[in-house]
């Protein structure tokens, strides 16, 4: 799939699950601690290749997500590195208490992989949309939250989870996105990446909204504005320094997330900004969802909820005129 961008050229876009699955298989060849746990989702979690290469290390508990996360915690407590994979809403919502008690509170090093998050399952409706995951999981101390923006970052997230296992949620996107980083540009725990630097306004995206923020930045630059674009690749630990710097160095902040605004990226940014001294609290605009979605495909829903590059640009102009 490719999406038209403002300049009407087309850019290649990728399903992050491919990068996720390839990296996992590659690492599992040399690290026998890696196991995958899933809920009848071998296909939708892209674990087919893992299953054929390591049949004993693929544990399919059936349609039983609470059990699945508990089993993952048990495996982690015995020294394995379980990648627990399921569609985002069922992994995080259905098993939320297991994620809290068995993973975050118990500090079992489970890698929770929320597949096809956001509104990737557009027409399947709100029960299948994982737009509350960020708010739910941000409330849990001791759980890392990684939202890779592209295939390179997805690979890095998997590798880091193996090199330094800790309780972690990785949001593995299905909606195809263009690259926003190069293989070498990295993914650092607890940091927002500066994708572009600027001094007038800061746009912060996460996952699918990073490339949209970049498009918005192009449009704003055309009207002479200097735009900073941050990629909130980690939501926990939160990059307080990057937010503080953006608040001090630019005149407005816009956040955009394929998630509910109650407790997500925007709320995190706003809560940091609200605690800064007077004079360094620029206006913050938060783009995201605040109601259950109507029926529609992902691209249509992202437009419907005001998450296009044009919406981000408009929000930036509005915030600047306020500041």
């Amino acid at each position, binding site marked *: 799939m490719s999406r038209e961008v403002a300049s009407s050229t087309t850019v290649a876009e990728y399903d992050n699950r491919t990068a996720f699955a390839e990296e996992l298989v590659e690492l599992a060849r040399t690290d026998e601690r890696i196991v995958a746990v899933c809920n*009848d*989702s*071998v*296909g*939708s979690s892209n674990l087919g290749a893992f299953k054929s290469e390591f049949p004993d290390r693929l544990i*399919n*508990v*059936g*349609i*039983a*997500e*609470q*059990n699945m996360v508990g089993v993952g915690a048990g495996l982690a407590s015995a020294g394995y590195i379980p990648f627990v994979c399921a569609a985002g*809403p*069922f992994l995080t*919502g*259905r098993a939320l208490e297991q994620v809290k008690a068995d993973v975050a509170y118990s500090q079992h090093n489970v890698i929770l992989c929320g597949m096809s998050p956001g509104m990737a*399952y557009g*027409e*399947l*409706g709100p*029960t*299948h949309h994982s737009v509350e995951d960020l708010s739910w999981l941000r409330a849990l101390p001791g759980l890392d939250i990684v939202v890779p923006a592209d295939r390179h970052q997805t690979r890095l997230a998997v590798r880091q989870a193996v090199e330094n296992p800790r309780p972690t949620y990785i949001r593995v996107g299905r909606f195809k996105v263009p690259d926003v980083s190069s293989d070498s540009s990295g993914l650092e725990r607890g940091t927002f990446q500066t994708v572009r630097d600027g001094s007038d306004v800061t746009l912060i995206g996460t996952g699918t909204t990073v490339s949209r923020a970049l498009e918005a930045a192009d449009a704003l630059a055309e009207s002479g504005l200097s735009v900073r674009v941050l990629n909130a690749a980690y939501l926990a630990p939160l990059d307080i320094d990057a937010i503080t710097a953006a608040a001090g160095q630019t005149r407005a902040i816009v956040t955009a997330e394929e998630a509910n605004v109650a407790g997500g990226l925007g709320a995190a940014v706003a809560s940091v900004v609200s605690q800064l001294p007077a004079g360094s609290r620029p206006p913050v605009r938060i783009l995201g969802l605040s109601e259950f979605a*109507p*029926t*529609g*495909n992902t691209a*249509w829903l992202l437009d419907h909820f005001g998450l296009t590059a044009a919406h981000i640009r408009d929000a930036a102009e509005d915030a600047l005129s306020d500041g």
Partner: protein
Amino acid sequence: MLTTDTRQVEQWRELTSAVAGADAVERDALLTDRAKATRREIIKMIDKAGQGHIGGDLSVTDILTVLYNAVLRIDPATPDLEGRDRFILSKGHCAAALYVTLASAGYFPASALSTFMDADSALNGHPNRNKVPGVETNTGPLGHGLPVAVGQALAAKLAGNGARVFAVMGDGEMQEGSNWEALMTAAHYGLDNLTAIVDRNRLQQGARTEDTSSLDPLDEKLLAFGFELRSVDGHDYDQLLGAFAPSSTGKPVAVIANTIKGKGVSFIEDRVEWHHKVPSAEQVALAMEELA
């Protein structure tokens, strides 16, 4: 919210009274016709939408056909009629089969079926009670229907209105623990007005159910959980009608409906890859021939 199609409600009333008054042979013919029409419509909807859970839709069609045309005490012209019987499709991914069934009872115009999964359509990929009359609760995440059905059966007992409650679960869905919690509650409260139906097609999303997380012996498990057990051919109308008769033991009833996933279309039957797959144009034509 969609609204009643009164002409279609009339046709549904004619059909249900014909079914009620017919002998076994005539009744089978009437229900077979209805089920075939439902299956054809399901294929059309999935073809147009470009997605849909075709295998499970075709598997549950006969159960829905019998319930809605010969068992449930409902009035599609008054979807919220007090004291009505309730039906919950817990395996909500099979919304297409439910939508066609509801439309043919007149809950909403059949013309809406062609909007299945379109932008802003009421007919989402999973049933939504706020948009579709006749849908009693929202489903989609597996393992939610039976607990809600237990609550509805308790409510009918409290109100003393004699209403019965039916819920259909997939066999894969029975792997969710919430179902077993609900079974315990139902037995504990002696909910003889509840019928829990398992669409036992032996396939789930990724593989055969017994190869994923085995359920057998399902009959012994349901008996041990305090249910009156009825194991039937889920495509045999006579057997289904018997299975949906009121409890004879004062216990809640569990029906194991032995079905074939993809029933009615030869190349879809009992094949796991058709859990969620769209037929090609030639396959649609072939399916229509087989369902003529």
